[in-house]
């Protein structure tokens, strides 16, 4: 018993990720936390997407289940679990069964290396970014398998479209990533790194986020990645694989109930995964904004208040809407529920003000906040851009993004060489 406690406690003093420290217990705890947090994020995204899209189109969105439709995702989940699970008679059983599993596995395994903070990652790999790109590229397999195994025309066309799209945008994405990794090697001994934590630490050491490095080269590379990552996750305006007006629902037309919800889960967690790659590579990962301009201890103090203030702000919105709820007795339970939700948010916010907590939670907060920004962009794109045609999509990928990526890579390498050889010999 004593040894077990010692084993658990031994990690607390080490300044490492649980994977690097080799501590099984904390690795499991982190895996559970990441998995739980991700599921909650997907549920929240489901509600937010419907709400934000609705408001962009001057509608109200879900309003019936719970106050302002807050319980709608839970109702949806229950509905999906209770639905009949249909497998087409002519489908290829084994492949049909495996496809959603592969997509979900690929989407969740990626989070093993996502750095929420210098020690807040399940593990840190020497090939972190390669691992992320590689495993997320496996999800194409699941999509292709789903489309083929359904033995139906629309899913097959959707799968073909999506695989062609993902394979061609992976090239531009890879080039953009390489130019960011090149920037990590601009230190004294000239060796870069592929590890996700190492990339953020390189940005910390160079006192510059890579998006601003060699302006505008970093910005252009980031732009290429930001376009490619939308195509990579099959989201609007590149959602040709599931274009509902042309292909019903694309590769998952024949899926229903729980299997379909696995595809849904995988799509959203893949969105979060690619956004966290973008945040890690260009937006400084867990680092707080304005580290140079607003440095010093008073600013550190102010920025450490942000997590708490954010939750208090959400709580204030809840209270504001509690007051605005209809006064009819039928709405009493909803009003009490919304007020209770506000109280919970406010309590979380207050706990985050405790200095011991806020120091540890800050990295996670800034990382999640940046990723949340990307999530909002995804919804925004969906609300504003019309869908691309397939030939336009291919033209964009191969004739615009790929040459741009190559150019940025060559320019970044030349500027980096110049900087090391001439300006700082």
């Amino acid at each position, binding site marked *: 018993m004593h040894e077990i406690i010692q084993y658990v406690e031994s990690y607390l003093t080490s300044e490492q990720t649980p994977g690097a420290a*080799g501590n099984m217990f904390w690795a499991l705890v982190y895996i559970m936390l990441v998995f739980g947090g991700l599921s909650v994020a997907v549920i929240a995204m489901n509600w937010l997407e419907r709400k934000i899209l609705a408001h962009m189109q001057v509608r109200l969105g879900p309003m019936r289940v719970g106050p302002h439709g807050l319980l709608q995702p839970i109702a949806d989940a229950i509905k999906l679990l209770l639905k009949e699970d249909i497998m087409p008679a002519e489908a*290829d059983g084994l*492949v049909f069964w495996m496809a959603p599993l592969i997509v979900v596995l690929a989407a969740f395994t990626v989070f093993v290396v996502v750095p929420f903070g210098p020690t807040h990652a399940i593990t840190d*790999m*020497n*090939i972190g970014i*390669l*691992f992320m*790109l*590689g*495993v997320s*590229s*496996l999800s*194409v*397999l699941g999509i*292709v*398998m789903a*489309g*083929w195994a359904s033995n139906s025309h629309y899913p*097959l066309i959707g*799968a*073909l479209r999506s*695989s*062609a799209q*993902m*394979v061609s945008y*992976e090239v531009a994405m890879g080039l953009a990533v390489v130019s960011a990794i090149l920037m990590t090697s601009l230190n004294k001994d000239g*060796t870069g790194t*592929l590890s996700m934590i190492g990339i953020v630490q390189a940005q910390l050491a160079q006192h510059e986020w890579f998006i601003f490095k060699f302006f505008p080269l970093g910005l252009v590379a980031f732009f290429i990645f930001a376009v490619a990552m939308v195509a990579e996750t099959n989201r609007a305006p590149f959602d040709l694989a599931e274009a509902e007006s042309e292909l019903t629902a694309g590769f998952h037309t024949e899926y229903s109930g729980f299997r379909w919800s696995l595809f849904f889960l995988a799509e959203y967690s893949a969105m979060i995964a690619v956004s966290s790659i973008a945040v890690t590579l260009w937006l400084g990962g867990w680092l707080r904004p304005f580290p140079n301009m607003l440095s010093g201890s008073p600013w550190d103090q102010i920025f450490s208040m942000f997590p708490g203030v954010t939750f208090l702000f959400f709580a204030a919105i809840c209270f504001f809407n509690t007051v605005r709820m209809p006064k009819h007795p039928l709405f009493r339970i909803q009003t009490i529920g919304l007020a209770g939700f506000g109280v919970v948010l406010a309590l979380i916010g207050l706990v985050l003000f405790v200095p011991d907590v806020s120091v540890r939670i800050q990295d996670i907060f800034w990382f999640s906040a940046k990723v949340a920004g990307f999530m909002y962009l995804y919804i925004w794109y969906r609300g504003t851009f019309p869908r691309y045609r397939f030939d336009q999509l291919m033209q964009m990928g191969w004739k615009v993004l790929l040459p741009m990526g190559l150019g940025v890579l060559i320019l970044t390498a030349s500027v980096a060489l110049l900087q090391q050889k001439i300006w700082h010999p």
Partner: protein
Amino acid sequence: MAPVATPFFFYLFAAIMLIGGILVITCKNAVHSALALIVILLAQASIYLMLYAPFVAGAQIILYAGGIMVLFLFVIMLVSIERSMKERQFNSQWVVGIVAATALGGLFIAVYLKGKNIFPDHVLPVVESDNTQKVATLLYGQYMFAFEIASLLLLVAIIGAVVMAKKRI
């Protein structure tokens, strides 16, 4: 931390690869064969990991499992499976097959019996943390010429594909 590269994992992945290999050549459905091939490639990536070569393992997953095999599947799926299932195997080259198999088997047995002196007894594993950097310095330093020749070959292949696919250049 105890090393994970234990014999158990080697035999596990080797068994997966062997079973996958048998499935590749015995499956009637071409898509199933391709999927079995993907399983083999992933198991192979794990063996690279056991050999302390994380970069090669990552490249294997990205290039083979995620890229090339998707294109394979892409082509196979456009073939009508019903017709190809009914068709008899027309490629029967038993003699060549048996000769090649015995030659390879004999080679393996010979290496197993007399191989103790061929291979170095013990190789210091490269430290995992700077494996990628080591690969890079070797590729872009010592083996620069071979590397460039290989990329030139790929370029020739790309140009050839474009020439064959496009009617008017």
